[in-house]
């Protein structure tokens, strides 16, 4: 079946602009995660959704970052007033439930000029 999909695959933006990154989880997966993969920092957890609620937002690096999930399915990660240090690959993962294996999407490569 279809795996986790993310769009866009690449995004280049100017410093100070807002960006939205989208994640389509595997159908029926209730748990959804966002991670960030950057040089030097490796893979970092950002936020976790169970259904439409986000019980863990502890990894969001600043208040410029926000995320929502609607209908228990699609999620968007929004970065406001982007900075150069936001440049990274943003990965989304989903799992059938919170304790199950996480399946990753291909990522969105964000470049902030």
């Amino acid at each position, binding site marked *: 079946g279809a*795996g*986790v999909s993310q769009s866009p695959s690449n995004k280049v933006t100017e410093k100070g602009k807002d960006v939205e990154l989208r994640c389509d989880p595997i159908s029926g997966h209730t*748990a959804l*995660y966002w*991670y960030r993969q950057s040089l030097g*920092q*490796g*893979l*970092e*957890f950002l936020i*976790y959704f*169970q259904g439409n609620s986000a*019980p*863990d937002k502890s*990894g969001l690096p600043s208040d410029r970052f926000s995320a929502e999930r609607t209908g228990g399915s699609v999620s968007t990660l929004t970065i406001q007033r982007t900075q150069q240090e936001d440049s990274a690959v943003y*990965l989304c993962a989903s799992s059938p439930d*919170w*304790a199950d*294996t*996480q*399946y*990753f*999407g*291909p*990522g969105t490569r964000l470049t902030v000029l």
Partner: protein
Amino acid sequence: AQRVTQPEKLLSVFKGAPVELKCNYSYSGSPELFWYVQYSRQRLQLLLRHISRESIKGFTADLNKGETSFHLKKPFAQEEDSAMYYCALTNSNSGYSTLTFGKGTMLLVSP
């Protein structure tokens, strides 16, 4: 705080040689440990998890709680094993689980 350490950024071996990718963790509790792999131009995927105690693509990993290690091993490396390998742990005690990753080890297998 939970932490995963992969001391080697790069491991280069010849085809047929044994491979050991090191992973140490710190966690106050009973963690669940994983190895994820990312082949060139492919997405991150699960290789194995310690509770399954299975061998995938010839790789095995044993959880050593005394040494807080979860090293990944393969007796005879193949060229197609070249990839980025991430060790990760999850904290499932809070009613949900998020992955804490090491910084990864790039494995290069030469012919």
